[in-house]
């Protein structure tokens, strides 16, 4: 069997790393675990990771994915880096608002806005 295919697209641009999801549904716990392991490996390889995670293709998101984002945010902060989220549609944004995670994660309308916000 071939090695499992990556479920993310990674682009390095203007001093930051941009991550996009391949899947529309970020629901399954096994899938979420492998995506976060992959992103964690990218974070650990950077001295001060500046990362934008784009939700442009995402239509469904589970609470397990929210938990993974919190862990990734903490890992990035532990390396003095910065995490930004972008392109979140209104339905998905509501999930962040209900859980109040919009108060601890920095969310921007576009990748460009997110990139400009790095300090």
């Amino acid at each position, binding site marked *: 069997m071939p090695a499992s295919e990556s479920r993310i697209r990674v682009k390095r641009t203007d001093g930051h790393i941009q991550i996009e999801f391949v899947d529309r549904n970020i629901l399954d716990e096994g899938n979420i675990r492998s995506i976060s392991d992959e992103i964690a490996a990218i974070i650990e390889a950077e001295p001060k990771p500046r990362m934008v995670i784009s939700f442009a293709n995402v*239509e469904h*998101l589970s*609470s397990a994915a*929210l*938990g993974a984002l919190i862990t990734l945010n903490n890992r990035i902060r532990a390396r003095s880096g910065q995490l930004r989220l972008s392109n979140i549609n209104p*339905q998905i944004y509501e999930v962040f608002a209900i*859980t109040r*995670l919009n108060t601890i994660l920095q969310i921007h309308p576009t990748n460009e806005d997110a990139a400009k916000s790095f300090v």
Partner: protein
Amino acid sequence: MAAPHGQHDRAVITVVNDAAAIERAEDRVVEALARFNYPRASVFAVRLSLHEAMSNGFRHGHRSLPEDTPISVKFDASDEHIEIVVEDQGPGFDPSAIPDPTLEENLERGSGRGLLLIRAYMTSAEYNQKGNVLRMTYRRPAGT
């Protein structure tokens, strides 16, 4: 074409802890909502709630049970509402013991948001006394 007023779409689905089986159960419920032309926001709300309910059943309810222990998903959809009953075979739990994940001190916790989302998106969601059966209802929003 939408199902006529008064019709129901009902099913009982046995779901094992496998991504494909979980997705099939979600797709079956989404298909029922589509039959009655529920709006996109309703489909989002019900699918997410069902996913969280099944996930809680497997992750917490079946924590001490064999990996292949199935849960049961029973639904009854009409053009007015959908009722979904998710039953696991675990010993049950006390939902009031779950800390409020929206409190400042709990915001960075990695889990414990499933029931919050279910209660936010569904019209009602109640566990039985034992705590292994979740009965959820979603009522079609007025004017949709």
